[in-house]
């Protein structure tokens, strides 16, 4: 794809700073997209672990009926915090802010993003939002207990610190918008010469489509949150029916953002899958244009289906069948992707390394999540399953089994590039297996319980659910073990792992043409693009580059 871009004996981005400082300040004030990506990695991983610990605590509470370790009110705040952290602090920013920042500029042959300072600002805006969540826990009134959906009228009447917590979500939204603006501008303005749109790697396409959703949808939640704060503070009747407001309007506005937001979560993950599968199948991607276009299609049709979350809210019957119908249409572009991935693997020479195994786990778990989504998208079945564990199982399968596993896949795929070292592959593979077992024990049981009628957001349950609840909790322990094994392996390998070399997997997109870790401005000369993005015939010439 590129010629002569490897520089010998060049300092990498850890050794060279973009500013006059050294040490910690050279990181905190950096404008290097790779360093900012890593700062996001550390911060987001921290919150992910916090979210996991809260999840484990909730499962512990549910080990036995009645009170086990916490009372009902504490459970309410636990699932709210768990949801807020996992959604706003982990899964929405996760892939774009970490891997998008680090790899989008490299993959299109750029030296940085279009607005490096704005990039750093977006990181600090994220941190401010996170700190506000933290502060809201300790102020009088206590931690927010509304669930991560902040539904009216309870969120107006709850005496907990709702205003500050949702203000944090408002601020986090700005971070997301800034990242989106940066990526769109970067893709339009900074592509290397001859890097036409249809030569861009599919991760770039996916991140680009995501950026559009970040910009167009996020302001909606921002305004909605402001309206709730105004209503709480000044008693203006916007949503609360007691004051003449319309509570269903809140649900509309909330989901007008939050459904497209699930595509902010999953689209970049699909982009990562489209990178990993060709590399480990040694075969050019099947249906490149179809995958690229389906990203844009998903970004667009994602706006048409939000009210499938509201079938039991009391909205009109017409709206109920219209949105149920529209929901089935969104399955199409996702299907296009899955079929093209499978076609790519067909007759490929597959090398099942750790990132590939994560992707296999993804396809399995995400398919279950997606198909049960159709069950919930059907008006009749949703009326039965709404607000049960079935929904909890469904969204963990899509968000955690989907985006979460791809977060780990991306980490294992690009780890050698980011840090210049390899992890211990056997241990990493064992972690995948444990994850898969623990995950299905933890959440598949929730499908069954939900179908039997176990409602979500309860700290207690009837005796007939006892066995399944126990299996689920044991699953959470296996899952936690897998996550800590994986994290331990990666952290240990940061210093002790074997040196990785520029191209450990035999990838062909631009990041594999430069040293690991990359030099400060990525490329000594801006590369000339001579190949299609997934043309593996160039692997031979690439051997000569280093």
């Amino acid at each position: 794809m590129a010629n002569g871009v490897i520089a010998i004996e060049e300092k990498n981005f850890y050794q060279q700073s973009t500013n006059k400082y050294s040490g910690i300040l050279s990181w905190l004030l950096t404008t290097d997209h790779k360093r900012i990506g890593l700062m996001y990695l550390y911060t987001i991983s921290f919150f992910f672990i916090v979210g996991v610990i809260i999840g484990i605590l909730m499962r512990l509470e549910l080990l036995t009926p009645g009170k086990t370790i916490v009372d009902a009110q504490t459970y309410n705040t636990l699932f709210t915090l768990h949801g807020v952290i996992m959604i706003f602090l982990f899964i929405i920013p996760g892939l774009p802010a970490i891997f998008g920042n680090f790899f989008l500029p490299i993959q299109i042959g750029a030296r940085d993003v279009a607005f490096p300072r704005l990039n750093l600002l977006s990181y600090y805006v994220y941190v401010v939002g996170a700190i506000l969540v933290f502060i809201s826990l300790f102020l009088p009134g206590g931690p927010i207990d509304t669930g991560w959906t902040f539904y009216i009228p309870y969120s107006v009447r709850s005496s907990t610190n709702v205003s500050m917590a949702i203000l944090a979500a408002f601020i986090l939204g700005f971070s997301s918008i800034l990242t989106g603006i940066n990526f769109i501008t970067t893709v339009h303005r900074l592509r290397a010469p001859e890097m036409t749109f249809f030569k861009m790697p599919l991760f770039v396409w996916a991140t680009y489509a995501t950026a559009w959703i970040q910009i167009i949808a996020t302001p909606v939640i921002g305004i909605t949150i402001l309206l709730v704060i105004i209503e709480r503070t000044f008693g203006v009747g916007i949503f609360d029916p007691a004051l003449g407001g319309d509570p269903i309007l809140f649900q509309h506005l909330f989901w007008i953002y939050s459904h497209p937001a699930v595509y902010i979560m999953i689209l970049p993950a699909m982009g990562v899958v489209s990178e990993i599968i060709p590399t480990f199948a040694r075969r050019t991607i099947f249906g490149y244009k179809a995958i690229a276009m389906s990203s844009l299609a998903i970004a667009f049709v994602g706006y048409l289906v939000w009210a499938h979350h509201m079938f039991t809210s009391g909205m009109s019957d017409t709206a109920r069948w219209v949105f149920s119908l529209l929901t089935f249409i969104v399955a199409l572009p996702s299907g296009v992707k899955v079929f093209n991935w499978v076609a790519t693997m067909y007759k490929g020479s597959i090398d099942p390394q750790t990132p590939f195994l994560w992707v296999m786990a993804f396809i399995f778990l995400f398919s279950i999540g997606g198909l049960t989504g159709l069950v919930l998208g059907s008006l009749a079945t949703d009326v039965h399953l709404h607000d049960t564990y079935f929904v909890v199982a469904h969204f963990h399968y899509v968000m955690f089994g989907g985006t979460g596993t791809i977060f780990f896949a991306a980490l294992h795929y690009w780890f050698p590039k980011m840090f210049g070292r390899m992890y211990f592959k056997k241990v990493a593979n064992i972690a995948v297996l444990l994850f898969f077992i623990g995950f299905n024990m933890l959440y598949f049981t929730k499908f069954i319980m939900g179908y039997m009628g176990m409602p979500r957001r309860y700290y207690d349950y009837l005796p007939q659910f006892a066995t399944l609840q126990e299996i689920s909790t044991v699953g959470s322990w296996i899952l936690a073990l897998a996550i800590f094994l994986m994290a331990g392996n990666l952290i240990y390998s940061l210093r002790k792992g074997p040196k990785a070399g520029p191209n450990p997997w035999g990838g062909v997109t631009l990041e594999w043409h430069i040293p690991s870790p990359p030099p400060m401005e990525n490329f000594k000369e801006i590369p000339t693009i001579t190949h299609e993005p997934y043309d593996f015939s160039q692997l031979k010439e690439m051997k000569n580059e280093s």
Partner: protein
Amino acid sequence: MGNKKHIIGYNTYILVWLSLLALTAITVSIAGIHLGDYTLLIAMFIAAIKSALVINIFMHIKFDEPIFKVFLALSGFTLLIIFVLTFFDFIYR
């Protein structure tokens, strides 16, 4: 991009600002009259004029590259669809 600088005089800005204020005043006063189903229609119409003024003059879109107009049209179109779909609930409830 931005090579041709369009200088807009202060007078234009002030004029636009005054019209925005006037339109806001109209919106508020109309909300007090009972026009039934037309209240919303009129309010939306006035809001559309206001945003057109802001986008074209204050945000300089009128003088910028076509690509920005495409981007804007895209967001506007999305917003329109969202309105239409919401009305499937609002009208038939």
